[in-house]
């Protein structure tokens, strides 16, 4: 059984349901003892900006900000797609806890150990 788990998340406010469920599943993975990565790309990179997720709260789920904070506190890591981030002219000095801007090689390295990956 692989000890790593990746959640690829491509949505932010364009699909708050997917953004929320992505982090719920990521929390299930980190809560199950997996080294867990959330890879934010496309519109998902906006979630890496402090304050962006503050008003996202899907019915039946905890607020997204809380889900993200709990994920980081539990040791979860967040990779933010560099070209997606730059394209949107976001602020690299205003990242949420656990987030770092990376290129594709970091994602490939993480997955190369046989990590499963689910996408939202």
């Amino acid at each position, binding site marked *: *059984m692989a000890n790593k788990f990746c959640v690829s998340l491509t949505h932010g406010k364009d699909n708050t349901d997917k953004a929320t469920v992505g982090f719920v*599943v990521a929390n*299930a*993975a980190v*809560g*199950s*003892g997996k080294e867990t990565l959330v890879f934010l790309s496309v519109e998902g990179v906006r979630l890496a900006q402090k304050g962006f997720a503050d008003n996202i709260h899907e019915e039946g789920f*905890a607020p997204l900000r809380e*889900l993200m904070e709990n*994920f980081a506190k539990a040791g979860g890591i967040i990779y933010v797609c560099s070209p997606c981030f730059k394209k949107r002219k976001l602020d690299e000095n205003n990242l949420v806890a656990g987030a770092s801007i990376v290129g594709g090689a970091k994602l490939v390295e993480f997955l190369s150990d046989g990590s499963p990956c689910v996408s939202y």
Partner: protein
Amino acid sequence: MVEGVVEWDAGELGCGELVLELRSRLAPMNPGELFRLVALDPGAPADIPAWCRMTGHTLVSTQHPVYLIQRKED
């Protein structure tokens, strides 16, 4: 409240929120200690046994919504 057994009523909490909280509650316990969980979420009957298999904790008994878990060795 049963003496020597840590108890937690998770209510409707489920999926990632449930197991992440479970993880943090079992971590400070001593190996072998018992944890009585009440989880109403309809996914719990499948999730809790899977979570125990992955983490190494022992699922002593299960009668939804009550789960008795023995904390693993360090």
